[in-house]
């Protein structure tokens, strides 16, 4: 609770500061310009027991007549952190967004509640804690915030963006253009064209794999029951020879690799001093996505998708912070994240950055990646990953026995800690040691509870070893891999 209060207070303070820094901006003189779920849509799987954080802004293409919300504005209008003089020249760390919702609460967690402008929330918001969230805001409504995206209510003006961060750090980013039919920016236009619309789901930043509750949103392995693991949620290779590669199964990732969901940062390796990984291009749901109201019109409206108004998406910056191991820290970049001096490669997203292990007990380093939309950095990280701490027990496996019998090789091994562990692979040195290959068919699910150790007994078909009599247990972590000592049979 304290953490929630702290993070919420921090966000509120930053947003307040952003609004306070905002001088006089254009305001809507029309009676209303809603940005809201309009067609019965909502966001699902967005943990919302506590208030969720949502922020919206508009970006113009800067090609007349779409100039009401340019992404480059005068220094005096810079609303970001850092020095305004450098902020709006592109050299600073702040953002220059002249049309945004500032500190207005635009997220509805409860249908009986109100948004920050006093508007009654949509029925689809459900109840707090059910993971259903709607967006409700009026650019011409009450409150102090800068800008009016589409003062003349014309097509293709002032495309809106909404970024929402749920209680567990899972997030979603949506962009819609102006609907002349609705005289509104309808979030539903980026949702599947069902009636009611959608819904869209917050990216499962952390879900259970295996165990008794697969798919459950989780914070630690303990939330997933015996045999379950809490893993960050898109499918990319972690570890192995192709970290960051888009995959469908573990076999797509080669020896030592695991196919995992990723929220925007893919861990490669971490040796305690240097962290290497890959940042994919951020994902934004838009009204130009196939099958959305924006593309099909739902059989009711004319389509509003105009691809030329979609801004370029790019990787952003890297940040780090220290927090309690096994937790999901607030991914809002203003909540204590420190900018790192290394940025992901603009083409591949690959990076290596020095990250020392935190010295505190049960303290872990976290690395997060932001994104850029139309050149503007996102408010919150598009993904984050946890690195092992100085005093956190290692998830390295210790082989207790390996015996060949009949057609199988029986292996017993244990761990003393499983923090950040995704699972195990069994490797062998084939071709006389020239080629290390994986011999298990599926990742071995961790059993450790609350980061603790566990014992394992597995059987592997003897033929998989291709004549080799040496094996290793590879621990696949959220931030790389660890290899056991070799064992013979």
């Amino acid at each position: 609770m304290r953490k929630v209060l702290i993070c919420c207070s921090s966000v509120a303070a930053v947003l307040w500061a952003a609004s306070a820094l905002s001088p006089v901006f254009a305001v809507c003189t029309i009676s209303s310009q809603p940005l809201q779920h309009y067609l019965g849509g909502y966001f699902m799987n967005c943990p919302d027991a506590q208030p969720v954080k949502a922020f919206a802004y508009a970006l113009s293409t800067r090609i007349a007549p779409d100039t009401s919300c340019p992404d480059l504005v005068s220094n005096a209008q810079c609303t970001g952190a850092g020095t305004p003089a450098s902020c709006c020249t592109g050299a600073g760390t702040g953002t220059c967004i002249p049309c945004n919702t500032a500190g207005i609460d635009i997220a509805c967690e409860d249908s009986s509640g109100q948004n920050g402008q006093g508007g009654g929330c949509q029925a689809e918001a459900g109840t707090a804690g059910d993971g259903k969230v709607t967006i409700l805001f009026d650019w011409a409504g009450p409150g102090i915030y800068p800008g009016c995206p589409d003062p003349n209510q014309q097509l293709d003006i002032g495309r809106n963006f909404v970024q929402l961060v749920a209680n567990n750090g899972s997030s979603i980013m949506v962009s819609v253009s102006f609907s002349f039919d609705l005289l509104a920016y309808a979030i539903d236009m980026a949702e599947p064209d069902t009636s009611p619309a959608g819904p869209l789901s917050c990216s499962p930043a952390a879900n259970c794999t295996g165990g008794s509750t697969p798919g459950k949103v989780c914070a630690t392995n303990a939330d997933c029951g015996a045999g379950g693991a809490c893993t960050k949620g898109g499918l990319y290779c972690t570890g192995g020879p192709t970290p960051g590669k888009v995959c469908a199964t573990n076999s797509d990732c080669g020896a030592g690799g695991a196919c995992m969901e990723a929220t925007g940062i893919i861990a490669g390796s971490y040796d305690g001093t240097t962290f290497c990984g890959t940042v994919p291009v951020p994902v934004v749901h838009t009204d130009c996505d196939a099958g959305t109201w924006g593309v099909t019109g739902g059989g009711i409206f004319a389509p509003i998708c105009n691809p030329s108004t979609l801004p370029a998406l790019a990787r952003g910056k890297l940040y780090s912070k220290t927090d309690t191991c096994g937790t999901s820290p607030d991914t809002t970049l203003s909540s204590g994240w420190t900018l790192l001096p290394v940025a992901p490669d603009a083409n591949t997203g690959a990076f290596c950055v020095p990250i020392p292990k935190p010295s505190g007990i049960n303290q872990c380093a976290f690395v997060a990646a932001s994104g850029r939309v139309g050149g503007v950095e996102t408010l919150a990280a598009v993904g984050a990953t946890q690195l092992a701490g100085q005093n956190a027990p290692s998830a390295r496996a210790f082989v207790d026995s390996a015996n060949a019998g009949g057609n199988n090789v029986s292996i017993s091994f244990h761990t003393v800690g499983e923090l950040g562990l995704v699972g195990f692979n069994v490797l062998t040195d084939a071709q006389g040691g020239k080629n290390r290959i994986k011999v298990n068919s599926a990742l071995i699910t961790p059993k450790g509870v609350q980061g603790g150790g566990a014992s394992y007994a597995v059987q592997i078909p003897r033929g998989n070893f291709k004549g080799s009599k040496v094996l290793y247990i590879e621990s696949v972590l959220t931030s790389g891999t660890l290899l056991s000592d070799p064992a013979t049979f």
Partner: protein
Amino acid sequence: MIRFKPSRLTVAATVAAILIVLAGSGAVASNMGFKMNKAIFPAVSGTPGKGNNLVSLPMNNPYGTLNGLCTQTSLPAGTAVTLKNPETGSQTGALTCTCGIGCPANTTKLDLSTQGLAYSFLGVQERMPVSQTATFSQIIVGSHNPIQPVLLRWVQNDPLCPEGTCTNAGPGQTCANTPSLCCATNANCVSPATCNLAAGVGETWVSVPYHTTAVTANDFCTQAGIPSGQATIVRVAADTGVVTSGLCGFSTANYNLVLGEAVKFRRTSAGPCTRLSFIPAHF
């Protein structure tokens, strides 16, 4: 057996009760005259929407003109009273005046159907000056006209569109730099021209009958025979400035109507480009 023998008092009470019941029935008759105290909320500087009172006037009323509304209901001097012409989207010029200051006796008649428009909707916006900080109680009188239809124009091509046939021609639809070319989307224009759509066209401030049977905005949509998705219906809460936007047939239009408040109907481009006529249901 006890024989019932009514006393004079009992008979008198029974007759009185019958009369009350009959009077009660008459009181909810659609064309019964009525009087209502309508709260007119003050405007607050810097708070858009607050104080924009969208008022339902009865179909039959004694006010006649905007000035008549000012004087007969004693609206505070400086109150702007405004009508909206859905044909042009305009709500300026002769469609608005300021009570006690710029509102001569011969101002626009409240019923635009008498102005050559085939409309009768009688929703009027009243906005007091910010110096008027207290809520004003406006006494509105009148009666309903149970045979008077409300007409809603199609948002795009109507009324130049021949009934039942859609074209791309219509008021408010010109392409920048190529004004002779009509459009519905920017794709209809030669770049860099863009399609300029008049957002206010088609927006109709509809007076909700004081005896309406509609509870929610969606009920009103249903009574108007508007298929799902073919019109937006918007409410302005003058006390908070909050605008509630709903789409007929969708959950967003499940909000409750408020007695005395007009609503803003605006048909979407969906459906036929014919005008839609309806008579609001009532008790």
